[in-house]
């Protein structure tokens, strides 16, 4: 398993015909098996950086390699398939499909990955059990609390056993107790499933948990702090 490597990455976009530079010449590495937090003030560019790492946005300049793959060379469909197999996503607003039950939400990425139905059932059961929601499998998102929805979202992100899980401020819409529980769950899952988590957050609870902290300001990485001990053995 190889790291995410960004070299000379810049990102600009137009805001009412005014060019806004969201990221400027970013060089950073995200190592596998670690709990990485990208932190910074609102508008600093942390979400933009997370989107680029998660391959849902393309840079204006620079190169990005995820697990050894040059993602900028991929076609749109190729990149979509790559996301499906290598990356998971947890969103601030949970972003569950409201017409699908908790079970079906977790199952959906496996259907996209064309996993046989028999294997899917076992996999979804296992994932829901790992987030403590086996008894809520038939509930629609609207019937779940915020914390429960985020647990379903975490289970969905892990469904295809991705290398990296991108979490965009996953505790921002949760109270502190629930946020703490979610972070603990992610940490436990990270250890159990040997998956790398990349957060964008300015939640002190999340930042305190980080193995690696990337601080960003005005679109530039101002420092990277790495703990010496990694969270788990790299697979």
């Amino acid at each position, binding site marked *: 398993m190889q790291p995410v490597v960004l070299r000379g990455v810049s990102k600009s976009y137009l805001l009412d015909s005014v060019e806004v530079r969201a990221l400027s010449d970013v060089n950073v590495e995200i190592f596998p098996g670690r709990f990485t937090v990208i932190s910074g003030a609102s508008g600093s560019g942390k979400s933009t950086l997370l989107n680029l790492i998660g391959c849902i*946005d393309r840079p204006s300049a620079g190169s990005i390699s995820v697990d050894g793959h040059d993602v900028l060379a991929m076609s749109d469909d190729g990149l*979509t398939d790559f996301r*499906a197999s290598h990356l998971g996503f947890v969103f601030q607003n949970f*972003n569950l499909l409201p017409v*699908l039950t908790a079970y*079906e939400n977790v199952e959906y990425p496996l259907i996209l*990955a064309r996993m046989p139905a028999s294997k899917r059932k076992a996999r979804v059961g296992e994932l829901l059990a790992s987030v403590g929601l086996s008894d809520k499998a038939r509930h629609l998102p609207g019937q779940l609390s915020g914390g429960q929805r985020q647990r379903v979202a975490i289970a969905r992100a892990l469904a295809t056993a991705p290398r990296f899980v991108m979490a965009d401020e996953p505790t921002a819409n949760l109270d502190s107790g629930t946020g703490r529980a979610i972070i603990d769950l992610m940490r436990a899952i990270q250890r159990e499933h040997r998956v790398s988590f990349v957060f964008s957050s300015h939640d002190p609870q999340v930042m305190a948990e980080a193995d690696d902290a990337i601080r960003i300001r005005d679109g530039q990485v101002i420092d990277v702090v790495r703990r010496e001990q990694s969270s788990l053995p790299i697979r």
Partner: protein
Amino acid sequence: MNTLTLALRNLLRNRRRSLATLLAMILGSVAVLVFGGYSSNLVYGLQTGFVQSSGHLQIQRKDYFLFGSGNPTAYGIADYERIVAAIRQDPVMQKLVTVVTPSLQLGGIAGNFSAGVSRTVIGSGVVVTDQNAMLQWNDYHFPTRKTRRAALLGTEDDSVLIGKGVARVLQLCAPLHVEHCAAPAPVARASSSATAMPDDLADLSKSSTVSPVAAPPTRIELLVANPNGAPNVMSVNAVKAVDFGVKELDDVSVVMHLPQAQHLVYGNAAPQATAIVIQLQHTSQIPQAQQRLRQLIEAQFGRDQLEIQDYRTLNPFYGQIVTMFGAMFGFIALLIGAIVLFTVSNTMSMVVVERTMEIGTLRAIGLRRGGIRRLFLCEGLMLGIIGAVLGVLISLLVAALINQSGITWLPPGRVERIPLTVRIWGKDALIAGTALGLIGVAVLSAVWPANRAARMQVVDALRHV
């Protein structure tokens, strides 16, 4: 969780909006089907009327159809009885025909000399029992309140039917008890000679009349030119004035027994017919019957002497009505299709806007652009299928209610009011065409919103509030 299931659940998500869209589709399909069923019924009714009166096919002398109206008797078929017999005995035709009968068209002048009036007429000589049998043809199962019978059935040989217009001009409304028939204002006459038939015509009439009777007030004289151009006159008895449905026919039509018509035209010469009328069991048998008749004619009577005309050619009015209703149906279907197109398109566009973040999520977790496009097209398809099924079911219900309502109306070319009928059940092509058209329009409506959804950038879609 396949795409169709997901599409169906998404439709159920905003039930009120989906219902409003479905309602527009249902109303559209009901309008198309009810009008289609109504116009089908009208066309079947017209066809039934024409087939009952002039059959599906007619064998005529070559060029009679083009030139015979000027001088019908010059295009007589001399050996018509042999042709009729050949058709009746042919094993193929026996399975197809219900009636084979000769008829004679003639042109002349009808005069009521006691009133001093006359007018040009077009006469038909028919075999009344055959005509009666033809009137029983009802392949489309129209409700009949009473069994129709030929008006000349059981009448004397010299009896004739005349159109109400003929009766009016010949001042026979009172003796024939014609309702709503105004009598003309008295006209000052130059002489009193109008009260008596001219001696020369009286002599001609006496020589042509088989069984002269004491002149009742309904007695009229028919004057025709024989094939050689000489005049023949016959005194006949107008037993009834009938409404032929179209004023132009009403003003000129005279129907009489075939032998009498033949005697009037051909005198003591061999009788002829101007057409052999063939009524089939079903209209769909026309091509088969035509093919067989050509074989019979070519084998027995020579290929260049006779020709076969079908009821559409003989009655151009029928074709015009069919074309007119076809155009109206097409216009209505197009209009309703456009309304449905914009309604569904508007709904789908709103759905795409509302679910922008969901689209971003699906794309992020691995659904390709094609998958997004398929999802929204499936939603359009599901709307179309549900709308089409409900539309067909409700149309059948509406048609049943209309058919049971007892409302009657007077269609063109008919003389009696008929029940308002909408014929949808059994019209498989109409139902399938409308349903498939509606589904097609619904899918087409979803194409643009689906493409818009598929083209969204993931990150932009996820930022959507």
